[in-house]
């Protein structure tokens, strides 16, 4: 044990003895790992927020289906849904995307009754919408559009009965910061006008009596198609439970994370030879040192153990620095640059707080990857040096 500790100490000394080699290796590790740790941190944070959002949402979501594809529902469906035993509350919602402003910024319009606006989105300026044409905007969207409370927006939509000027009456911040990036709330009627879909909603949000959710879901699936006598005929009900939405979450986030990871793997493939190069930096010096150790009676495995400890220390330094820098990037710099990958429509430098959570798994993975790469780089060169005849390396 004492022998092991004495050799391990020389590994630590080797890190300090070669500041250029150690510094270059740690820098390379940091360059590769920081984006990875930061991006997985944002992905975890977004997943947490999405789960929180789902938890605070409705028990069931009823939408329409035509030809097996999503279709809006007639508002007359509300009564049919409300009549199902176990249903406590039903309210309609319109959710749709639209381009807004001169840059046609993608915005998500949520048309909803005033008293149904989520409590997690308090107005920080102005008030909630009351009349038609009044909008409440996410702070980040308002910043992008350079509007404030009282600003009037020229018509940004086409409607058969004519377009109107809209007024921003409130700006909200949210417990779910990503909502601030592209959401705007308005009344159901205003949303109907914006999308030119009178008498329709994109979904009905259903709250059930405790213990009735399953029964209500089954009953809703058995409802006859909703028919308001419109020209396109009836619309079949499609029911999505909270669990269904939760199940969809990893798929959508996982997709974005997957794209990122693919890029990361490609970057990594380029980074590995670089890291191996820096880890083996000063190869002639390393060979000479290893030869000297061998000449003074060190065994090959003892020289390798020294190299292993050196690798371990460099990996800990690299991974630790990466986690700290990633934390700084996410917390102090609000994930500038990386947020846009996971939040479509968000600025590279969003003004809102990007959610993040530094989970232990990516950090540990980062450490393991650091150790593997540095070990390969360091140990290979050390092994080559340690197995050569000392006399040759010392010539």
């Amino acid at each position, binding site marked *: *044990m*004492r*022998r*092991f*500790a*004495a*050799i391990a*100490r*020389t590994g630590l*000394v080797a890190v300090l*003895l*070669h500041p250029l080699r150690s510094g270059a290796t740690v820098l390379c590790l940091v360059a590769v790992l920081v984006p990875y740790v930061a991006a997985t941190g944002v992905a975890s944070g977004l997943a947490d927020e999405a789960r929180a959002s789902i938890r605070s949402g409705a028990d069931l979501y009823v939408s329409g289906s035509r030809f097996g594809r999503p279709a809006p529902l007639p508002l007359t469906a509300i009564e049919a849904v409300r009549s199902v035993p176990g249903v406590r509350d039903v309210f309609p919602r319109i959710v749709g995307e639209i381009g807004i402003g001169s840059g046609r910024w993608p915005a998500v319009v949520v048309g909803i009754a005033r008293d149904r606006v989520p409590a997690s989105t308090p107005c920080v300026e102005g008030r909630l919408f009351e009349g038609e044409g009044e909008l409440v905007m996410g702070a980040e969207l308002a910043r992008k559009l350079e509007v404030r409370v009282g600003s009037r927006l020229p018509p940004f939509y086409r409607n058969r009965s004519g377009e109107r000027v809209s007024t921003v009456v409130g700006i909200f911040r949210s417990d779910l910061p990503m909502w601030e990036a592209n959401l705007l709330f308005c009344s159901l009627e205003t949303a109907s006008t914006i999308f030119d879909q009178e008498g329709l909603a994109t979904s009905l949000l259903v709250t059930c009596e405790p213990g009735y959710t399953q029964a209500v879901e089954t009953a809703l699936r058995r409802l006859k198609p909703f028919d308001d006598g419109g020209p396109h005929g009836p619309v079949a009900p499609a029911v999505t439970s909270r669990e269904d939405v939760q199940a969809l979450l990893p798929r959508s986030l996982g997709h974005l994370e997957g794209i990122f990871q693919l890029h990361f793997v490609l970057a990594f493939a380029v980074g590995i030879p670089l890291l191996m190069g820096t880890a083996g930096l000063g190869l002639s010096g390393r060979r*000479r*040192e290893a030869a*000297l*150790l*061998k*000449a*003074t*009676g*060190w*065994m*090959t495995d*003892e020289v390798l153990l020294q190299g292993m400890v050196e690798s371990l220390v460099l990996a800990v330094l690299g991974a630790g620095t990466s986690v700290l820098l990633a934390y700084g990037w996410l917390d102090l710099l609000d994930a500038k640059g990386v947020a846009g990958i996971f939040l479509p429509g968000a600025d590279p430098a969003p003004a809102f707080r990007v959610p993040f959570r530094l989970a232990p798994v990516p950090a540990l993975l980062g450490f393991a990857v650091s150790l593997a790469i540095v070990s390969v780089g360091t140990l290979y060169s050390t092994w080559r040096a340690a*197995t050569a*005849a*000392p*006399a*040759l390396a*010392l010539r």
Partner: protein
Amino acid sequence: MTRIFEARDACRRFRDVCALDRATLAVPRGAFVAITGPSGCGKTTLLALLGALDRPTSGTVLFDGHDLGGASEPYRSRVRRRLGIVFQSSPMIEGLPLWENVTYPLVPRGVATRERRRIAAALLERVGIRGRDGARPEELSGGERQRVGVARALAADPEAILADEPTSDLDRETAAAVVKLLREFHAAGRTVVAATHDPAIEALATETFRLG
């Protein structure tokens, strides 16, 4: 008297260059052997073969009756652990304090750091470098480096010292100090094999082996 080192027709070739040609030598335990000969005759190469720092291209090199040429690397490392080697070029780990450089052979033996510092201080004092335990090799003159090399060779209390031109490039006073150390080591019943041009070392030798 048993033979600690033996070479039988030992050859070492580097591609087309013959660095050592059929050297035959026997070193009894406790002897002081001077290897002499003109520059380039293979003195350093012979010492490297005897010290298990290299393998012969042909012929046999024995340590304590065991063949070093075909021995496994761990065995050869164990042999080196029993020897102290003084290199002509005094290689050291640059940037590392002298006390660490001197006692690096003790690290795999698990000697505690405090004990290593004590041993290093005593050895450095013996070779005339007092109070500079914390100095770096790059701060030393050529003569001082050579003396530190001798101190390192003595650190692990070896059975034999293989010294390659231990007094070359040293002033007379320093050379005398190194010769004195080798004499003391030999007087304690240990073996010294020195490749040298120095008449002072040749005068000490119990046997002289001439190469070339």
